[in-house]
């Protein structure tokens, strides 16, 4: 009886022993520090990827084809990927929705729209070279299709908000019988994946409604309801500017179908009030003056503190750090959180700013 179970633990013990021995050989470093010189994608603990191609989509958007290294656990269409790139020597992390359908052993793609003055998006679209090694995190996010596909689906997107939806359509359009996509972009030539979407529509895979806002103006929920009369009966996925998503949420809530609406936001809606203050990062012996609009995450990073981070917009809690003393303000609602010495209130640094002097334990 026991024999059927022994192989696994034995293999595990051997592997654990081998790992311990390897660490003895390389201390104070870990084996991966040496191995990654030979094979940058080989490490499973430090996930990296190689950019295989940068394909232009529109004048200011491009698709990056990335081969993730060992340890990539795959993704579900609609999820996003955190990407770390070194720009002018400084590592910058941002999230991008996966636009490729899941292919466990293959490459993945993300599609980036260059924002005016955008540090990372401009770099990725215009300066990134094929062959570059980038840092990756496992795919994350709940903006996905359910396993049992809905009978009637609606996608409402604008600008770069098409990206997670493109991932879903590429993965599951053929499993959806009744799909409507309402997409807004300034002009026809600005529509990312325009040709592919129009082709899909022509083959009957979906009903595509393009809205060109330079000519036709922005779409409001009323206009949307006119275009898609059975709107609130449809399981809906929406991604685009916060204003659009807020209006949709209100409309769906008013119709009592709030639960049918799934949204993905690319940035939090922030407000800044007050004066900021001096932030001490006690574990790093760094002190910095911060204004009321700059997140604690940005303040720490720009002073060389190794800040943990994730989505950078208040949803994943990947950035929480104990506040030991002083006050910080939540940039989304202005709420102030305070700590007195001895406390360790966890605060989300990506959406909090100093509200007077404060001490973070990092």
């Amino acid at each position, binding site marked *: 009886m026991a024999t059927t179970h022994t192989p696994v633990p034995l293999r595990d013990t051997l592997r654990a022993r081998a790992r311990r*021995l390897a660490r*003895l*050989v*390389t*201390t*104070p*470093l870990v084996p991966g*520090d*040496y191995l990654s*010189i030979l094979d940058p994608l080989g490490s499973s603990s*430090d996930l990296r990827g190689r950019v295989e191609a940068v394909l232009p989509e529109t004048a200011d958007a491009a698709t990056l084809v990335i081969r993730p290294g060992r340890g990539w656990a795959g993704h579900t269409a609609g999820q996003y990927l955190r990407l770390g790139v*070194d720009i*002018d*020597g*400084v*590592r*910058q992390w941002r999230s991008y929705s996966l636009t490729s359908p899941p292919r466990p052993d293959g490459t993945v793609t993300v599609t980036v729209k260059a924002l005016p003055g955008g540090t990372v998006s401009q770099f990725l679209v215009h300066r990134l070279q094929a062959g570059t090694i980038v840092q990756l995190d496992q795919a994350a996010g709940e903006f996905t299709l359910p396993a049992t596909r809905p009978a009637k689906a609606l996608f409402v997107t604008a600008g770069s908000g098409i990206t997670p939806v493109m991932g879903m359509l590429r993965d599951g359009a053929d499993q959806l019988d009744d799909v409507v996509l309402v997409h807004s972009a300034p002009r026809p030539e600005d529509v990312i994946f325009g040709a592919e979407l129009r082709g899909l529509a022509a083959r009957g895979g979906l009903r595509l409604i393009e809205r060109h806002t330079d000519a036709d103006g922005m779409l409001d929920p009323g206009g949307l309801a006119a275009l898609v009369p059975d709107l609130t009966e449809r399981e809906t996925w929406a991604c685009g500017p916060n204003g659009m998503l807020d209006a949709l949420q209100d409309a769906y809530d008013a119709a009592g179908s709030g639960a049918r609406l799934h949204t993905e936001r690319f940035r939090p809606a922030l407000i800044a009030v007050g004066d900021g203050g001096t932030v001490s990062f006690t*574990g*790093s*012996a760094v002190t910095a003056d911060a204004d009321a609009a700059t997140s604690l995450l940005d303040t720490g*990073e720009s002073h*060389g*503190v*190794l800040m943990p981070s994730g989505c950078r917009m208040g949803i994943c809690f990947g950035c929480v750090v104990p506040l030991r003393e002083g006050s910080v303000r939540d940039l989304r609602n202005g709420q102030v959180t305070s700590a007195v010495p001895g406390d360790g209130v966890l605060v989300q640094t990506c959406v909090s700013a100093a509200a007077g002097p404060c001490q973070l334990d990092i």
Partner: protein
Amino acid sequence: MTTIQKQANNPIAHLSAEDIERLGAELDAIREQVIASRGADDAAYIRRVITTQRVLEMGGRTVLLASRFPPAWFLGTAALTVAKILENMEIGHNVLHGQWDWMRDPKIHSTTWEWDHATPAELWKHSHNQLHHTYTNVLGKDNDLGYGIMRVDEGQRWHPFHLGQPLWNLVNACVFEYGIAAYDLELGKNLRKSRRGNPEFRSRVRQTLRKIRRQATKDYVVHPVLSGPSAATTLTANLTANFIRNLWSHSVIMCGHFPEGVETFERNSIEGETRGEWYLRQMLGSANISGSRLMHIMTGNLSYQIEHHLFPDLPSNRYQEIAPKVQDLFQRYGLSYTTGSLPRQVASAWKKVIRLSLPNDFFGRTEPAPASGSTPTAAPSTPKAELATTASR
């Protein structure tokens, strides 16, 4: 050297308080220029050094698997020695100073780095970055002045124990990494009966012993055993590499603050010190080593000790670039930029260690000969009013 405050010819007496603040502002400007231009080239530099170091180390250790054969022993030992020196000097020391923190690479960051050294990075950062770099050359505050086992300044009181200091210094050079570990634990102070039981001290001792055990196991057990029939020779190779690195880093570090021409400061002279005065103390309290590009890299750019002490957290590859600007400041403000070749500075530091093993007036004089390594500077202007640094005496 006697502390600057007690010298007959105070080398900063010609500077007014405003001069010193102007000097500080000029140094701040140099610093800002470097920070504003830090970028991809600098990041590529440190990554290249780290990769080179790791390839050299892997290569050296691989060759040593056959260390029974003398050519393999020599080649492997040489590669490992260079790798170990690079690791401590150009990489470890500088990463732990936070010189590369701006890259936000968690693999090359002062808070995550651990080095190939007996002392744990965390303890070293405290005694080196926080104590030595803050209190540079202040008698009674900067323990680096003789590491607590030697007298390297006339201002330090002589004790018969110091008669043996040439020997202590030699022994320290041979086992330097362990000397530093003991120093970071402040063993001299903490081994006193009253302090020995302090739980915090005990936990630091445990931390250090753990680190030493891991380091020694790697170099003196694991790698020899992996070499099979070459075990004994790999052991001697690793001992040799660590020994040479000890001698090398000890020599380089002695050159930083011990050669003639380097100034020291009174304990109470730094009370209420301004930023300008802090800079001035770093300028006078450090000495450079001249040499080739390779020599600078092998010293971890501590050959630019003056620049390093002014700006401990600027990337080391930039010290060379700002050195001419810093020298120009020394000229214009009538200060001595102490520098010399490695052999000359090492000899100068050793001479001081030997001379000060005896009481000050042993040879009937208290002042040493003028510093040989100092570059000529503009003639000091007429002494102005007492300035803050000296006034606080």
